């Protein structure tokens, strides 16, 4: 059955239906709807909701509940998302799954509440110190956000690593018709590592894996390298759109990919051969999408709602010098079709400098 839902509400409901039974959060625009929705819905589903005194505390509660094997979720934006990084680092070190939602707002520091994609470096590289990545999923629609929630939980549990659902404030705020998944129950005791009191078994310790599990320097390094190599090999997700014969390929994710696709359709009618690679996972970055580039290709354009262009670094690595790469960083603006086409023409006419 199709239903009309706001992005943030739909993601919350999808998490409940994936078996999430613990949520802790703090209000910040443009993610507050998640906190509001969870405040009543979690109780209805038999789980626990805590409006925490800070994001530092909220992610800590999530860490505790995740250590007990529950499916857990947290969410924030901007400066609140910064405070979550401490907890993410510890959840990573203890190899626990959780799902964190970053509903991106624009600007440094307090910044603004308008949609943006400028947390790319923070979510894709790592926001806390140390050697790690979170699994990062970047939906381009409310339906895709809903569909990725259950998948993100499965993968977070498979790799014992936090996942981040990363979308701009636009997808968080807009309403779209969606189909929700069926309700699923999650058994927190299914994992050998779930904390519940030792119950006659030897003591279990949830802490950095370097203390009890990977105790030699070699074992610690090997565990991390093996885990992230497997993620990079197996978990890349993307959509390729009209790339086979393209003279130009845009690389865009989230809300940007939708306006970009519209511009591509219009440009194609004007005879400009243009296509798009849309990463769905940002970590692992879908480098496989770039393995075969058309002979005719004149340039790859990374387009993103950030002031500096953050994803372009990964686009350059994926293209690896085979073709020129252009950095179309739009700040807080989403270009309209005319602006996209004008940029395409500039690239084709040699008026834009590659990076």
């Amino acid at each position: 059955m199709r239903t009309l839902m706001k992005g943030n509400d739909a993601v919350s409901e999808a998490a409940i239906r994936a078996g999430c039974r613990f949520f802790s959060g703090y209000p910040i625009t443009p993610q507050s709807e998640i906190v509001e929705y969870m405040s009543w819905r979690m109780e209805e589903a038999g789980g626990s909701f805590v409006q925490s005194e800070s994001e530092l505390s909220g992610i800590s509660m999530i860490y505790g509940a995740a250590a007990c094997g529950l499916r857990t979720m947290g969410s924030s934006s901007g400066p609140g998302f910064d405070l979550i990084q401490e907890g993410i680092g510890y959840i990573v070190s203890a190899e626990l799954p959780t799902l964190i939602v970053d509903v991106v707002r624009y600007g440094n520091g307090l910044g603004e509440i308008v949609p943006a994609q400028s947390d790319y470096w923070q979510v894709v590289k790592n926001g806390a110190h140390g050697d790690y990545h979170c699994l990062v999923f970047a939906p381009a629609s409310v339906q895709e956000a809903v569909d990725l929630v259950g998948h993100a939980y499965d993968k977070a549990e498979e790799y014992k690593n936090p996942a981040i659902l990363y979308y701009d404030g636009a997808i968080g705020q807009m309403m779209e018709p969606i189909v929700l998944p069926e309700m699923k129950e999650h058994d927190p005791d299914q994992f050998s590592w779930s904390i519940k009191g030792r119950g006659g078994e030897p003591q279990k310790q949830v802490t950095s894996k370097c203390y009890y599990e990977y105790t030699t320097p070699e074992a610690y390094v090997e565990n991390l390298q093996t885990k992230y190599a497997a993620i990079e090999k197996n978990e890349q997700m993307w959509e390729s759109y009209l790339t086979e014969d393209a003279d130009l390929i845009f690389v865009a994710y989230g809300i940007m990919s939708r306006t970009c696709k519209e511009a591509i359709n219009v440009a194609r009618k004007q005879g400009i051969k243009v296509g798009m690679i849309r990463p769905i996972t940002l970590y692992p970055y879908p480098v496989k999408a770039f393995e075969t580039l058309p002979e005719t290709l004149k340039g790859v354009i990374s387009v993103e709602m950030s002031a500096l262009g953050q994803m372009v670094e990964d686009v350059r690595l994926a293209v690896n010098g085979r073709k020129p790469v252009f950095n179309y960083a739009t700040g807080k603006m989403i270009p309209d079709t005319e602006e996209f086409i004008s940029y395409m023409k500039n690239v084709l006419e040699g008026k834009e400098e590659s990076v």
Partner: protein
Amino acid sequence: MAKNLVTPKLISEFNRFCPGCGHGLIGKMIAQVLEERGVEDNAIQVYAVGCSCFISTVVKADSIQAQHGRAPAVASGVRRARPDAVVYTYQGDGDAAAIGLSESLYAAYRNENTTAIFVNNGVFGMTGGQMAPTTLEGQKTATSIYGRNTALTGQPFKLAELIAQMPVAYVERCSLSNAKLIAQTKRAIGKAFDNQLAGKGYSFVEILSPCPTNWHMDPVKAYKRLDEVVAEEYKLGVLRDSKED
């Protein structure tokens, strides 16, 4: 008639604490209290960072190491995830009263049905004896080499008194300075767990404990200092008992 001394099953055979440190003694009492109530297999211990983190190598209950200061918040998540478990936090004074003050106060404010064991030795022990909020006026530490200047850094911080302002189940300050007070400390720990088992809400036990290493004195002098100096500033006794409301 003398009782047989039995080593608690939860206690490990070794510990990493310095000679004369109070942590090992407190760990033993926690293990005894849990076992006397038959809940040792149902206990979840949440600790954080600093010397107190070695508690998990001494008390072998299922354990989670929180970020520095965040044990009360982690325990709040555990409390909800495992409603039937016995959940407690174990923290030092730098951990719970400096970096984790917010999490400490809010766990009490929510009246979490948990037990908080707070070990006050007046210094940051693991990092080498720097000044803590609990350091006494004039006390020399690695970051107050001429003695703590309270005009610049504030008076010794009284976390137990702050928590006792809130409608929690129980707050008591105890000391390890002699056998009688150690026995009282064990009674307080026991009561704090009994409250949780009875669903009465948040209980907080502060324990004045010596740090001979960072106080730069032998253990005998350190235990004496607890009585003669520390307990003068940090008065012992029950600060709150909901039964008396």
